[in-house]
């Protein structure tokens, strides 16, 4: 996709216009996959050989889900469903099915145009099956809704709202998981539920998913299961979903919301009688942002807490001295190649007695295990393994020379591995200690070094996503169950004396609490051998005991000493780290709690499976199909309006893409047949270096500055071809190059520009971008681009010039949601008859009409303070109402100048032949994020002229008489059908330089 963006850049540059669409992080195709297709009755499963077993299980599970969903929907999807699977999230992030960057939180997606289901394994078969189910609900739901609306000829129907589609996908994916319970209980008890009519406030968030799921749960329980299907079958009855709900359950949103909230309160308020909020039980150590995965280190006389947090928007490792509020960033994440992403909720961190912090980040193609010395503040070791795509939750041995980690192989299986850490030859040696498709995670090394406790779904209930705590005995290489029963037991942590293992646990339909199980260093403690041989059930004295009983959920316990633990807990829609004292007293007073026990003597669980044979599998063959079609309508104050269409044809994996853009720029019927424009582009994304080539023909208006300062609209035709390549060095950096050849012909005009020629342009560029975005633009990080180009007229040598474009932007975070943004940009064409750049407008020099200041060279310096203005504003009117969200404010100061203009008419000066000082503007404005699609920018300010300005004895360069401004009387503002008229360049008095501007586009 980067290549395509660069195409736009190049075309824009050819047009002597330049926008900042050359930034953005890269989606790097590190891995070349040997794709195969497994065909089943209802699916085409795309897989690569390394995950053959996963593909077979995916096929079996998909067919199983299909039958269940056919029953639930009373509907059959008849075309084969394409399902593209990846053995890890890191591979999944390389998919080209979606052009967008895929964040860690996305577990899979359904693509509507081709009906593709795309999902990765994370080592948990249950999770894979649940995500698969979620996406298949989308497949059935989309097909059924389209069918119902088509049957009723309601082709312009907007469809159900997102909260319903995602809520239903969750609701029909299985019982609510503990996270759903955690979120809904927290929202109910803290009175932060969002009313149904205001679900748009949380549109697209995880919270919206859970609200939708819970509301449908309530409706099914209260009004009947059949109502959920009826909501789909009644969708044709109204374009307004509330009326569909009304027709189905007979209640409007207001009434339904009251009933739902009451239902939730009845369900969760009683829990206050025997449960406590985490903040009531323990000291809250962290309050800002999400904070998880604590690790403890006794550093001389200080108790230091290390944890992962996203408090500033980036996820990083922080340090906090227990008892103090100040925090310090230890490892800055998500800003560099080495620390692309921390696996925020998945991977623990650990620190040994020597002060070596072990943590995992994604770095390029695979995860990397880092060892960071907190004393010297440097990384001492980095480990990555070609066959281990994913790594998670390192845990140190007591002597600090080994680590145990959970590793995800290319096959998609999650197992435990031991890694040697030393300065010798054996450094990095790795040994696998479990080996099967069961999910083994959260390892924790015992204080005596003999045992490793871990969480595993190799229990009888594992297929339901339930885990128990197991213990691996390194002295015998045997493993045992430490807990049993239908629970989600996770994140074990040994007490310093090795007598207790604390872990998190929840029953189905509940949230996670802290539990402990005694450990007496003997096999009699264990419930059962992991292979179900050997000793029988453990004595009841070794049953786990509930340690805390919280209203919400607890995670990741870590012992500080025998009497203190820290843990993360969810509270008020935030993850906070808590510090609990008096542990030994609490342990002594714990009562035994009878936990459910299941039959241990059944065979281990497995999944349905479709065996891959020669007859049902074949190598991947490119089949091209329509990916998207969209109408294109352009309404431009300069170029007028025009219409056209764009469509893309891609193969199933999205690696090969053809784009066809066609539009007409005719201003009258006489031009209708001649003013056709098209671009045909082939984009190849199959390998790390992506490339694109194509042909284009432009016919229509070419903007140039004519005599008298008017913007000349010249008729021009241009056709040619181009080739571009892009090589991403990392996620944040890339090299790009392009060449284009075009023949142009334009009408005679009173300018010095040639009327015809063959232009050959070459560009080489380097771009870096690690910015962090807010609702209207970047808030943190930096972006830079340097492009060098050479353009020549190969026919008559009327134009031969080089181009330098340098653009640097830095965003200084002031608070969580405010920043100071700085940009300096230089664009320079030099040589024979170079093309003019056109400065002015909302994106570079505010106040000055767009493209009003010509020059073959220009620079701008922009300074902007960005801050939250209005988070939510609901306006109620007698005939309805509307709401505004994420309105941001800005205060700006722009400086700039353009010179080297080729316009030499002297009657009214337009631009300058030589550098003639600096003009600028200062003002304020606001930006309105509209549905995360557009940003409406409004700026109000005053232009100023620093040319010839005196500061004491100093006089700035330039001539004040040549002030360039806009025509206020004629309303020459940008956008909204406004116009730039022919009197743009009148001299204006200083006091008249007040302006306002509207435009659509994100902040620079």
């Amino acid at each position, binding site marked *: 996709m980067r290549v395509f963006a660069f195409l736009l850049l190049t075309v824009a540059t050819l047009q002597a216009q330049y926008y900042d669409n050359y930034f953005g992080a890269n989606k790097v195709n590190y891995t070349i996959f040997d794709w195969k297709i497994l065909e089943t*009755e209802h699916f085409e499963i795309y897989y690569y050989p390394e995950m053959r077993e996963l593909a077979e299980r995916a096929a079996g599970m998909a067919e199983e889900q299909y*039958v*269940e969903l*056919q*029953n*639930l929907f*009373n*509907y*059959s999807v*008849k075309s084969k469903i394409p399902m593209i699977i990846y053995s890890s999230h890191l591979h999944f992030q390389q998919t080209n099915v979606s052009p967008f960057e895929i964040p860690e939180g996305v577990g899979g997606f359904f693509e509507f145009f081709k009906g593709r289901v795309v999902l990765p394994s994370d080592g948990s078969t249950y999770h894979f099956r649940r995500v698969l189910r979620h996406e298949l609900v989308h497949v059935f739901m989309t097909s059924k809704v389209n*069918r119902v609306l*088509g*049957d*009723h*000829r309601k082709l312009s129907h907007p469809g159900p709202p997102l909260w319903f589609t995602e809520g239903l996908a969750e609701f029909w994916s299985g019982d609510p998981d503990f996270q759903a319970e955690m979120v809904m209980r927290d929202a109910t008890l803290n009175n932060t539920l969002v009313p149904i009519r205001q679900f748009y406030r949380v549109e697209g968030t995880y919270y919206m998913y859970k609200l939708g799921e819970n509301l449908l749960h309530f409706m099914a329980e209260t009004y*009947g*299961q*059949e109502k959920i299907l009826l909501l789909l079958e009644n969708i*044709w*009855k109204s374009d307004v979903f509330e009326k569909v709900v009304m*027709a189905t359950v007979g209640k409007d949103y207001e009434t339904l919301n009251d009933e739902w909230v009451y239902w939730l309160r009845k369900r969760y308020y009683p829990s206050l009688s025997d449960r406590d909020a985490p903040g009531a039980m323990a000291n809250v150590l962290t309050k800002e942002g999400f904070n998880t995965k604590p690790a403890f280190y006794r550093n001389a006389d200080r108790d230091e807490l290390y944890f992962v947090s996203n408090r500033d928007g980036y996820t990083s490792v922080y340090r906090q001295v227990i008892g103090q509020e100040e925090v310090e960033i230890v490892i800055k994440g998500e800003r560099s190649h080495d620390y692309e992403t921390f696996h925020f909720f998945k991977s623990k961190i650990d620190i040994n007695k020597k002060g070596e912090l072990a943590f995992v980040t994604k770095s390029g193609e695979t995860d990397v295990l880092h060892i960071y010395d907190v004393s010297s503040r440097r990384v001492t070791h980095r480990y990555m393994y070609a066959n281990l795509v994913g790594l998670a939750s390192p845990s140190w041995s007591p002597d600090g020379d080994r680590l145990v980690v959970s590793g995800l192989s290319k096959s998609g299986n999650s197992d435990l591995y031991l890694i040697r850490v030393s300065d010798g030859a054996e450094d990095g040696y790795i040994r696998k200690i479990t080996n099967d498709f069961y999910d083994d995670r959260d390892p924790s090394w015992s204080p005596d070094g003999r045992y490793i406790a871990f969480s595993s779904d190799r229990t009888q209930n594992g297929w339901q996503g339930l885990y128990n705590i197991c213990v691996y005995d390194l002295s015998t290489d045997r493993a045992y169950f430490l807990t049993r029963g239908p629970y989600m037991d996770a994140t074990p942590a040994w007490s310093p004396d090795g007598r207790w293992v604390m872990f998190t646990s929840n029953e189905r339909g509940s949230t996670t609490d802290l539990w402990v199980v005694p450990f007496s260093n003997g096999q009699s403690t264990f419930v059962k051998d992991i292979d179900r041989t050997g000793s029988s059930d453990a004595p009841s004295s070794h049953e786990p005991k509930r340690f805390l009983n919280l209203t919400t959920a607890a995670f990741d316990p870590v012992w500080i000493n025998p009497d203190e633990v820290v843990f993360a807990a969810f509270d008020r829609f935030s993850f906070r780290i808590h510090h609990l004292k008096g542990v030994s007293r609490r342990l002594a007073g714990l009562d035994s709690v009878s936990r459910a026990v299941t039959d241990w003597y059944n065979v281990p669980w497995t999944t349905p499976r479709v065996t891959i044979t020669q007859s049902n599998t074949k190598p991947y063959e490119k089949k091209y199909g329509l990916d998207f079609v969209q109408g294109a309508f352009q309404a431009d104050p300069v170029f007028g309006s025009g219409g056209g269409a764009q469509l893309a044809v891609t193969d199933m994996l999205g690696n090969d893409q053809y784009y066809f853009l066609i539009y007409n720029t005719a201003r009258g019927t006489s031009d209708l047949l001649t003013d056709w424009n098209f671009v045909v582009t082939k984009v190849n994304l199959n390998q790390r270096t992506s490339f694109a080539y194509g042909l284009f023909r432009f016919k229509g208006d070419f903007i140039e500055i004519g005599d008298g300062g008017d913007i000349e609209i010249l008729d021009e035709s241009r056709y040619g071809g181009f080739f571009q390549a892009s090589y991403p060095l990392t996620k944040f950096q890339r090299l790009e190059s392009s060449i284009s050849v075009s023949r142009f012909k334009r009408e005679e005009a009173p300018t010095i520009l040639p009327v015809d020629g063959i232009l050959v342009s070459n560009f080489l560029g380097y771009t870096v971008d690690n910015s962090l975005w807010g609702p209207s633009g970047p808030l943190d990080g930096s972006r830079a681009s340097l492009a060098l180009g050479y353009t020549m007229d190969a026919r008559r040598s009327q134009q031969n010039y080089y181009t330098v474009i340098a653009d640097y932007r830095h965003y200084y975070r002031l608070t969580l949601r405010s920043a100071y943004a700085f940009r300096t940009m230089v664009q320079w064409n030099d040589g024979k008859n170079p093309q003019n750049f056109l400065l002015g407008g909302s994106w570079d020099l505010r106040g000055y009409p767009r493209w009003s200041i010509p020059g073959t060279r220009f620079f701008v310096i922009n300074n902007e303070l960005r801050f939250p203005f209005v988070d939510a504003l609901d306006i109620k009117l007698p005939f309805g109402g509307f709401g505004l969200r994420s309105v941001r404010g800005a205060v700006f100061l722009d400086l700039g100048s353009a010179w080297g203009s080729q316009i030499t008419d002297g009657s009214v000066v337009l631009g300058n032949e030589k550098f003639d000082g600096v003009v600028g503007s200062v003002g304020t404005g606001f930006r309105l994020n509209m549905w995360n699609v557009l940003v409406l920018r409004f700026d109000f300010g005053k232009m100023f002229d620093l040319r010839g300005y005196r500061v004491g004895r100093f006089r700035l360069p330039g001539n004040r008489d040549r002030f360039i401004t806009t025509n206020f009387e004629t309303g020459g503002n940008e956008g909204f059908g406004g116009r730039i008229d022919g009197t743009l360049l009148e001299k204006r008095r200083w006091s008249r330089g007040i302006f306002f501007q509207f435009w659509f586009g994100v902040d620079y």
Partner: protein
Amino acid sequence: MNRCVYALLFGMLLLGEGCRSSGSVSIASFFRRGGTANWSTLGADERRSGYVPTELHPPLELAWKFFPSSSVGSVIVVSDSLVYFTSLDGRVYVLNLRTGREIGKLKYYHASTAGAALVHHTMVFGLAAGKPTVVGYHLYDRRYLFLKDLGPVETTPVVFDDYVYLGSDAGVAYALSSSDGEVIWKVETGKPVRSSPAIGGTSVVFGDDNGRIRSVNRFNGKTNWYYDTGQAVAAAPALDETQVYLGSTDSTFYCLSLKDGQVQWKYRVGATRPGNFFATAAVDDERVYVGATDGYLYAFEKTKGHLLWTVKTDGAISTAPAVTRSHVFIGSQDFHMYGLEKKTGEIVWKFRTSGRIKTNPALYGEYLIFASEGRYIYAFKNIL
């Protein structure tokens, strides 16, 4: 000649008297009374047996196809060589059975999802939204007998002995006068009635979204009995002289005594793959046939409920079988209409349509008429 008559009829289309309808249709010129059994409502007759004593000999040949303005409602009615059906964009069509040509249509602003019942030139149908929601139209006289607002109606009415029986989404079952639509009695169920009522003796039997199968006296609406299945009942019952056959969304197919509602036998699907019953059954002298969302068509011996055979299709079955003397015809969401030998379940014929089959088929003489998504009505007949 026929074309001239049709053209004349189209020219006679007048604005209807309903405020939200247009067009009118008369069958006067086309009415041919014959000895063939009519398929006058969902399931052919007031018992919704789905059985007519006719004979079709698959393979069948396509007699004609018709392309209405939208997908077809759930019921096709054939009476006296005329085909009636509703389309989901709010139209009622009348076609000539022999030629497949349109004779006329009525236009409404809302859809009749369930379809019509037809007795003695009176067509009665419900509308799933808007007002009015119950329409009685005299096809011979081209006039509305009544227009009633009883809340959204998604059941196929049954007309019997001058009574119209239907259920509404408002949770009420009604008996109306077929001449003027006057409410004779009503029974409130508390939840929508989407299960079209059937008549057996002096009883009207229907299900509701409470999961109840209910029998009421058809003259006064007093409840004879009810049976609670626990989950919504969307399918219509099929009756014979003594028993009620009806599947519920609790995955169970029930045979109840028509007299007292006692369970005679029941069959639960889902042991190997999940299934449910949204489709109405058909019953002949020996067997009862019903399709399920698991894609299977089940045939039971009707007195004891022994499973005789099953046939798997590749899509959910949400329509009722149509049964002749020797064959069963069943449409599936796998796009196919199947013809089965009814003693063994052997598939002897199948035809791939343009889309899922969600409209209940009809039989009339040597014709099998059915519809599929993609806006096609098909008429097949014996080759010889």
